[in-house]
């Protein structure tokens, strides 16, 4: 390596295009040339235009005045930008109520999911008992069931339990949606922690519950963060459960709140785009916190090859 660098040094110094390309190529390493890098960047640019431009477009539109929105121009002049849409949306009493409901339901769902899923994942990861494999199989296969079919009788059950049009009903419904994935993900993380640590702690007189909270949980913070994030967005983003179980503004959440600004014949696009941005910003902020763990979390689950 070193000799190769030395021998090409003189060629770089001449400052010609060829010299520059060679210098870049060396910077990029052995299996990358500047031509290949240009292709890679070109394709990446294409992909991320497709993925990100629609989001940026929504954000830009939410800051437009009515005349800017309906001007038919791709780039309205600078004085068409305003925060009036946000003032209208955030000042709306019902929208505030829906936002608050969303926060309460999503946070409660996240907590309930973790409280239930962590011991369960610890159980299937560490304990030996008859029927353990069936539980894992049952959790995974619950993904194979049509949610709409579940909802029909569920509505009746919730009605009998007096949980229709209550925040608790939504929390329970959303928790069920997030549980199978959370248990599966956490099991993957717990499996990765050497069992020798459990044994050592047991020697020191810890019981199983202490081991779980003093050793397993602190060592799996990334997995717990990803599970929490998953439970949060499953609840925050849900429309189906809310549309059936919520009957009044006291329990409706943001996905329904977005309909406040549209009637059958007319859509207030300024308010709708601003409300959509308000709905997605909390998710994106949380995502920014967990995104570095997300890849690890995904590669830790069953995707590794059980």
């Amino acid at each position: 390596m070193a000799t190769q660098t030395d021998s090409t040094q003189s060629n770089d110094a001449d400052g010609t295009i060829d010299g520059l390309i060679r210098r870049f190529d060396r910077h990029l390493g052995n299996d990358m040339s500047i031509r290949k890098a240009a292709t890679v960047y070109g394709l990446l640019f294409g992909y991320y235009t497709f993925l990100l431009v629609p989001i940026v477009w929504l954000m830009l539109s939410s800051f437009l005045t009515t005349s800017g929105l309906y001007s038919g121009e791709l780039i309205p002049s600078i004085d068409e930008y305003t925060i009036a849409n946000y003032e209208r949306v955030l000042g709306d009493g019902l929208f505030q109520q829906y936002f608050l409901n969303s926060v309460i339901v999503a946070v409660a769902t996240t907590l309930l999911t973790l409280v239930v899923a962590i011991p369960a994942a610890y159980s299937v990861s560490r304990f030996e008992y008859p029927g353990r494999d069936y539980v894992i199989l049952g959790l995974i296969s619950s993904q194979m069931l049509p949610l709409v079919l579940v909802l029909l009788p569920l509505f009746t059950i919730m009605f009998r339990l007096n949980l229709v049009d209550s925040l608790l009903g939504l929390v329970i419904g959303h928790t069920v949606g997030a549980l199978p994935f959370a248990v599966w993900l956490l099991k993957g993380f717990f499996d990765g922690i050497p069992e020798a640590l459990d044994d050592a702690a047991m020697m020191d007189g810890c019981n199983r519950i202490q081991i779980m909270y003093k050793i397993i949980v602190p060592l799996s913070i990334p997995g717990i963060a990803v599970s929490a994030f998953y439970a949060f967005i499953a609840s925050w983003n849900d429309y189906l459960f809310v549309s059936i179980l919520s009957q009044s503004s006291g329990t409706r959440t943001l996905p329904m709140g977005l309909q406040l600004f549209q009637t059958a014949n007319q859509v207030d696009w300024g308010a709708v785009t601003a409300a959509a941005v308000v709905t997605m910003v909390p998710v994106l902020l949380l995502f920014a916190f967990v995104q570095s763990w997300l890849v690890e979390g995904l590669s830790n689950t069953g995707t590794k090859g059980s």
Partner: protein
Amino acid sequence: MSTQSDRSGTYVRELLSLSKESWLGYAFLAPVVVIMGVIIGYPILEGILMSFQERSMLQPDNWTWVRFENYSQLVNDEVFRTALWNSAVLTGVAVAFQYLLGLGLALLLMQKVPGIQIFRSLTMVTWVLPVIVIVIIFNWLVQPGYGAVNIIFERLGLPTTYWFADTRWAMPLVILMHVWKNVPFFAIALYAAMQSIPRDLYEAAQMDGASSLQQFRYITLPNISYVSMIMIVLHVLFTFNNFDFVWLSTGGGPLQTTEVLPTYIYREAFETYALGYAASVGVVMMVIMVTFTTIYIKLEDFN
């Protein structure tokens, strides 16, 4: 040991002789089993029963057994057949595109170009967005007169319309929204799988003079096949099961060109109030999903 009664006797003895540890294991698991049983298990059983009943959403306690009447009605129901076909097309086309585009993006993310970390960290953004927000974004983009897509089309001299209301374009648009949301998840999962392939496999192949296409075919693809299977099965289930995208964007229209099984069930149950009939569609859906998964996993086991 060999006879049935012996075996069940063993199970009983096993349960009786369980250690304190095992009981603790059950205790840790109990809340999940109870919650899943009450909210998923029991409703599924009742849903199956409901499909043999005539029952209305308005008076759920007032029902009669009709045996297979709901199912025989399904056979002649044209809307059901349309929804079944649309569900199959939507699922097949959307998952195929998601996998191919996701695979392409995963290969790009593996490249060691400067700044690739920024791209990797931005990838999952569309996957975390609420479906309703995605629908609003695409709905806004295709508004006639002032949506960005139509403005650009007009400049280019291409036809402009409200694409969600066009019988030819509504389904492709619904598919596009699915693909837009899920490509990142495929990309990240496949990227994670590719990263766990040992580097020396590639180095050995390079020594032997394998082209990068051959390396992809004989090293990368076989090593990501397990993850690919999981991702494809999961997303077939997610897409086949998905209600929000269609309901919030087209509501199944125009002229039922985007009606899928979940929206049809929802409509029958909560708008027509035909609970028993809706349940029979749900059971058909469930049978399809379970069959698909079982066949796929069996096939994968043989290879």
